[in-house]
């Protein structure tokens, strides 16, 4: 999904979530997880090949969809549909971490006698090696782990090891010490970035062409990037199951062949004709209705945790006036944008999406109300009405930009639309030296199920960076920053933390820092051969490939 790829690319600073491992639930495994289930071979198509086939480097949803079932971190996300799938559960670790009273020390214990797919024993020190790889290979995910004591020194080369990680290969004990409490750290430990890999993996190089041995139900047996790759059942995964990973689901098939196909329509036809078993991307709007009506028995819409919005530069005219930003919120019609997406979008007017802890539905700017918008704009009477609207060249993004451009002109602005290539869009608008960054398209997909992921990288003052910033609105509200920082030190389960995140959401929208308009839905569309009832969309990793099985 190029859309998601772009969404995740923009993330440079914070982002991503979980990964591999521990599979719970799952309808495809036996209760004790001790028996492999199903068999046979299926093929999957995706429009964009993953950026890397390397757990420490991949930073796209396409990549994580593969890695979720090939590399198991110490903690992982439950293999379950809906919000249950956002629960962090033990993966290669025996239990959830024991956290010290000051919230800075995490103690875990690796399960014993587990093996990678090539037979190499899985050791506690492999976790340290994985974190070291993040820094030596310049992974985009390293930012999540820079709060570990000694990590910055290791990254800078002034230390040979990360002093904040202590492991014992004999006992499996792992102790992680942080500089300061971090309420998201359990989530971060569940990301594919933190999946242990053996020391035979190159420390500082991309391992895509020769991926490290796996610790999940599948192993990657061949990669011909960016065309195809093959996943096969991991022969040593039983050792992980035997070690007591009761939440882990086994593979539902013996082999998966993944192929890149740039034609969405050809993929749709392939699934319809049963030559493709599952397509990762949703059918284009052009084919969606046809699929819904003719293949409803093997197609369904799926929820995803994301927010689509228009950013507005809060620091420069005309959007430095809150009335102007509020006017935009009144003028936008989420239903119009839903139709651009072929009916796959829930309307919204807030930062947090449904399914995210802290989400409480509200609407501050009922509309669309163009008259109200014009009245607010007239009241603000900005001197500068010449603005530039930014979007990228992916078809739906382009149409969104064209719609937004027209709305702004109707309001009374003199808007110019700038459409640039999708693969450089977020780096361009995230670069402060780019001229005329007034307003434009933005979206965000959750990296992990914690509301901080929707505030800190996107709305915190510290996220206003010279390059690779994600605070495209240049929102800077010190009192809200302080609240955000305070909430980060708490666990979501502490008191009314979730309610406070909901209040934070509303506080940003009272400032109209963004003009949010929708939460995009995804799809499950499989061939006749696949057990459709068993297949499900995971809220963090898209389709759970371990749940794909032949009838």
């Amino acid at each position: 999904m190029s859309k998601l790829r772009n969404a995740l690319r923009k993330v440079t600073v914070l982002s991503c979530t979980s990964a591999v491992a521990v599979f719970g639930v799952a309808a495809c495994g036996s209760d004790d997880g001790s028996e492999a289930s199903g068999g046979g071979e299926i093929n999957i198509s995706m429009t964009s090949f993953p950026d890397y086939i390397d757990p420490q480097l991949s930073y796209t949803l396409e990549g994580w969809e593969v890695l979720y079932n090939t590399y198991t971190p110490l903690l992982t996300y439950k293999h379950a549909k809906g919000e249950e799938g956002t629960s962090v559960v033990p993966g290669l670790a025996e239990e959830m971490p024991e956290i010290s009273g000051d919230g800075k020390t995490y103690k875990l214990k690796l399960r014993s006698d587990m093996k990678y797919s090539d037979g190499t024993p899985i050791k506690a020190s492999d976790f340290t090696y994985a974190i070291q790889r993040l820094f030596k290979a310049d992974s985009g995910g390293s930012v999540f782990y820079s709060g570990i004591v000694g990590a910055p020194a290791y990254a800078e080369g002034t230390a040979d090891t990360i002093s904040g990680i202590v492991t014992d290969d004999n006992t499996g004990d792992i102790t992680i010490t942080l500089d300061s409490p971090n309420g998201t750290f359990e989530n971060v430990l569940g990301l594919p970035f933190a999946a242990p890999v053996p020391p035979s993996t190159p420390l500082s190089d991309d391992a895509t062409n020769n991926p490290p041995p796996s610790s999940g139900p599948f192993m990657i047996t061949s990669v011909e990037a960016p065309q195809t790759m093959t996943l096969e059942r991991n022969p040593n995964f039983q050792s992980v199951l035997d070690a007591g990973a009761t939440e882990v689901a086994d593979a539902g098939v013996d082999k998966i062949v993944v192929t890149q196909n740039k034609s969405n329509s050809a993929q749709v036809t392939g699934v319809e004709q049963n030559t493709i078993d599952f397509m990762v991307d949703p059918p284009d709007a052009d084919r969606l209705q046809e699929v819904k009506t003719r293949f409803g028995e093997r197609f369904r819409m799926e929820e995803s945790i994301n927010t689509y919005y228009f950013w507005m530069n809060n620091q420069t005219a005309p959007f430095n006036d809150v009335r102007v930003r509020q006017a935009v919120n009144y003028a936008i019609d989420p239903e119009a944008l839903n139709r651009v997406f072929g009916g796959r979008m829930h309307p919204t007017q807030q930062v947090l999406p449904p399914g995210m802890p802290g989400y409480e539905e509200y609407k501050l700017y009922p509309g669309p109300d163009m008259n109200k918008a014009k009245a607010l704009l007239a009241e603000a009477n900005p001197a500068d009405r010449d603005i530039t609207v930014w979007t990228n060249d992916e078809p739906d993004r382009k149409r969104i930009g064209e719609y937004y451009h027209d709305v702004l002109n109707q309001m009374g602005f003199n808007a110019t639309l700038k459409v640039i290539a999708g693969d450089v869009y977020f780096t361009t608008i995230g670069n402060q030296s780019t001229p005329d960054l007034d307003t434009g398209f933005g979206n965000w997909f959750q990296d992990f199920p914690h509301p901080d992921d929707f505030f800190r990288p996107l709305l915190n003052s510290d996220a206003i960076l010279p390059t690779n910033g994600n605070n495209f609105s240049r929102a800077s509200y010190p009192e809200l920053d302080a609240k955000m920082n305070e909430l980060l030190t708490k666990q979501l389960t502490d008191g009314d933390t979730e309610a406070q995140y909901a209040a934070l959401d509303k506080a940003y929208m009272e400032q109209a820092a963004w003009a949010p308009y929708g939460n995009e839905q995804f799809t499950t569309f499989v061939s006749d051969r696949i057990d459709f009832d068993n297949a499900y969309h995971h809220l963090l990793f898209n389709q759970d490939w371990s749940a794909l099985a032949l009838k």
Partner: protein
Amino acid sequence: MTTPPDAIEAPGDPVLPVGVPAAQIRGRSPWYLAWLRLRRNKVSLAFGVLFLLIVVFCLAAPLWADHVAHTGPNENHITDTVMIDGQQVDVVSPDGTPIGPGLHGRYLLGADQNGRDVMVRLMYGGRTSIFIGVAAAVITTVLAILVGLLCGYYRGWIDTALSRVMDVVWAFPVLLLGIALGTALALGGLKIGALQVAGDSLWIPILIIGMVYVPYIARPIRGEILALREKEFVEAAVAQGKGPVRIMVGELLPNVVSTVIVFFTLNIANNMLLESALSFLGAGVRAPNASWGTMIADGYQTIYTAPHLTIVPGVMIVLTVLSLNVFGDGLRDALDPRAKIRLEH
């Protein structure tokens, strides 16, 4: 007084009329003779008229938009409804499918996915496409004449240097070169000294298209100038003391004008095709402005549910390019029946 026959020197009438004194035979200019030849080529004339009709159709865009469609080319109507056969119908249905063509004033050719009137965009898009085609052809022709004259007249190192530059441009596939330039100039625009063009300006594709076709016209002109350079009338001009500029402009250029006119016509068609291709690939006309190329690019996303979005602008491109090519061929035959001018690339 006997009126001399019009076709007296036209090809196909090889002999003078019997009994008409030579003094009474009216002289005919080469242009008039060309017109006589062209007039007899009915197919060519018909396509010429077709092209004019297309131009008129496109020029009428504001009238249609204001008085019939009541919407501009870039106005979105995604959630609007329109009355058809007494029923309110969504311009764009909740599943994103736009309304199709029909015999209703608004949305005569249907709407696109943003609820924009396809007829209005087609007319405005045609203005854009034809304007780019003609403007780029002017740039190409002027530059090609300049290069052709300099190379053919001076020869030597000037010819070598300019010809190699032309070779370099020629060596690039036109489309690839256009995409590269279009993409590079899209963000920051073009800034060369006092010349500043915004990235979303129509002049970006015009300049790109105008530049990339220069070698295709400059080379044959150079060849003709090289041959003409050796003719006696040039030696005579030199003997009269005329300078290089006067010889090039006053003696050589008039002798290649017919070639230039034919190339100009054919070049417009090629430019429109290239504009469509560049716009289709996102390196030409910038959204939300319409051109026939951008309309096809937008429309092919819905080729299953709304094929008219692609077919209608596609048909217009075919008709326009075909009319220009057929008319251009007729013009070539009329201006120089022995010529074998062909715009190849």
